[in-house]
């Protein structure tokens, strides 16, 4: 390889990767800029990189909406409850699946893995959740997706990598299965439990469809559904043609503000937790 060719490649590569970074980041920058701009500047199509006609009125407006805060609080509650349930169930099942000697282990693995490739489908699920009387309760949001099979397999792979001797020794010392799991295995598994917490928490924080499907009362919505209704409402208004300009202007601004407020928690923790996600995904990749 000549060094000239190498240098040309490096330059081209740098240009491409810079392009990737710019394209990835631009929508974020644009949303923040819009959220801080005045409605007139947005409608005129002048807001791209920087806020124009700096204006915080919309932030005040959104933050004074009690429904927004109720829905924001719901998101927090749903995320905490659902993540707790998911972690407990996933840990228990992954631990059982990691025991090579267990009779029927293959069947237990199969039961979980099959659901990755075949599912009951939207309608039967909807009929079931309605039939169980879970509609308009928190359970419709936190139960139907309690175990993510991909996460389960990642955790199983981790448990399998722990030294067997430790558990054997604990058993000889008189600890039962529960004792071994709680006092030996879990303390050694902080890294994987933390990864799973992140995986589940982000998924629940971001989810909207289960809530949209099973909740009818606005005070039960998570903030994602609040945002969805805001966006859909605005779209409906524009498609009917005759919109009050004031409403349209405020809507354009409100959408940006609500998006920023919804995404801020994720962006705040992202730099700190990102490497855990990455190592978690790679851990799963080892076993496939």
């Amino acid at each position, binding site marked *: 390889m000549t060094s000239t060719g190498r240098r040309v*490649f490096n330059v081209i590569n740098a240009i491409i990767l810079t392009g990737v970074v710019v394209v990835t980041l631009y929508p974020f920058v644009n949303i923040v800029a819009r959220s801080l701009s005045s409605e007139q500047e947005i409608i005129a199509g002048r807001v791209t990189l920087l806020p124009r006609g700096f204006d915080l009125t919309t932030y005040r407006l959104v933050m004074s909406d009690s429904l927004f805060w109720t829905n924001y609080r719901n998101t927090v509650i749903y995320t905490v409850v659902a993540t707790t349930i998911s972690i407990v169930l996933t840990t228990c099942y992954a631990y*059982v699946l990691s025991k090579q000697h267990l009779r029927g282990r293959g069947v237990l693995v199969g039961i979980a893995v099959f659901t990755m490739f075949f599912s009951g489908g939207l309608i039967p699920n909807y*009929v079931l959740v309605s039939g169980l009387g879970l509609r308009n309760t928190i359970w419709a949001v936190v*139960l139907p997706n309690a175990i993510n099979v991909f996460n389960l397999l990642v955790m199983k792979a981790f448990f399998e990598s722990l030294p067997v001797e430790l558990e054997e020794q604990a058993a000889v010392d008189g600890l039962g299965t529960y004792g071994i799991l709680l006092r030996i295995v879990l303390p050694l598994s902080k890294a994987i439990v933390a990864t799973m917490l992140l995986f589940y928490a982000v998924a629940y924080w971001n989810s909207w469809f289960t809530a949209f499907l099973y909740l009818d009362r606005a005070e039960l919505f998570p903030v994602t559904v609040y945002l969805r209704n805001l966006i859909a409402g605005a779209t409906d208004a524009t*498609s009917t043609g005759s919109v009050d300009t004031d409403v349209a202007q405020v809507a354009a601004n409100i959408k940006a503000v609500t998006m920023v407020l919804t995404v801020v928690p994720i962006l705040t923790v992202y730099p700190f937790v990102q490497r855990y996600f990455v190592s978690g995904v790679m851990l799963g990749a080892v076993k496939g």
Partner: protein
Amino acid sequence: MVTLTKAPPTAPATPPKRARRPLIRDWQLYSLAVLPLLFFAVFRYAPMVGNVIAFRRFRPGGSPFGDDWVGLRYVRMFLADPTFWQVFTNTLIIGTLTLIICFPLPIVLALLLNEVRIKHLKRFVQSVSYLPHFLSVVIVAGMVGQLLSVDGTVNTLAGTEIPFLQRPEWFRTIYVSSEVWQTVGWGTILYLAALTTLDEELYDAARIDGAGRLRQTWHVTLPGIRPTMMTLLILNIGAFMAVGFEKILLLYNPLTYPTADVIPTYLYRLGVVSGNFSYGAAIGLFEAVIGLILVFTANSVSRRTVGTSLW
């Protein structure tokens, strides 16, 4: 394997551990599986059984499994439904476009990232490219809406006033581009992991044989990450029929139905919104079975040709 239950106090008198039946010996382990199994039974397998409503007439307030057998009535109904064929075609087109474009791009990006020798720069680009993966699809749809609105950046830069999201001819482009934006960075993770395991000596050998960089990539790097590529390809094929249901539901509107409406969105409107549960379930079952066949076929083809398979 060591018995996990405590030995009773009269240990010497009990029969050898081997004689204990595994079910009794491991009862505590099995007990840990009870709640998860309950979850799978109720929220995963019961809906599969619930698909029988595709062959039975469902009445609101009646049994969730339907009331009377009607045989293939609903299957015949959707096969004769022109809208069904329209959404079926849309599903195939959007699924194929997504597969063709979203599958190879992470490989390309991973190869480019792998050539970056400055560690901090590489990590920065990676961190930025993963970011969209952590966003709610509602946010992504919102961003797409803002960028493409009449007052949005795309129109501002192009000097036009096209309402992109109201135009059927734009929908597929918009959908696939936003899908690339969301997934390309995150998709590189597994490839980058696979790339670090490649043997340096193979590159040295190739270099001695006179292979340039491109030939090295072609003959050493790509075969090296082939198992990862195949695994992800099979998984992508498995998701082919499901297409980005949630995102399409957020992005489409009656004006763009001609190109945007796919099987999952159609059966959402048909089943949940209009209450034709049996009809919707029949279409959903059809879709799920095609998905299952695709993934099994891809898996066995891959196992026979390149020796990589999911199971």
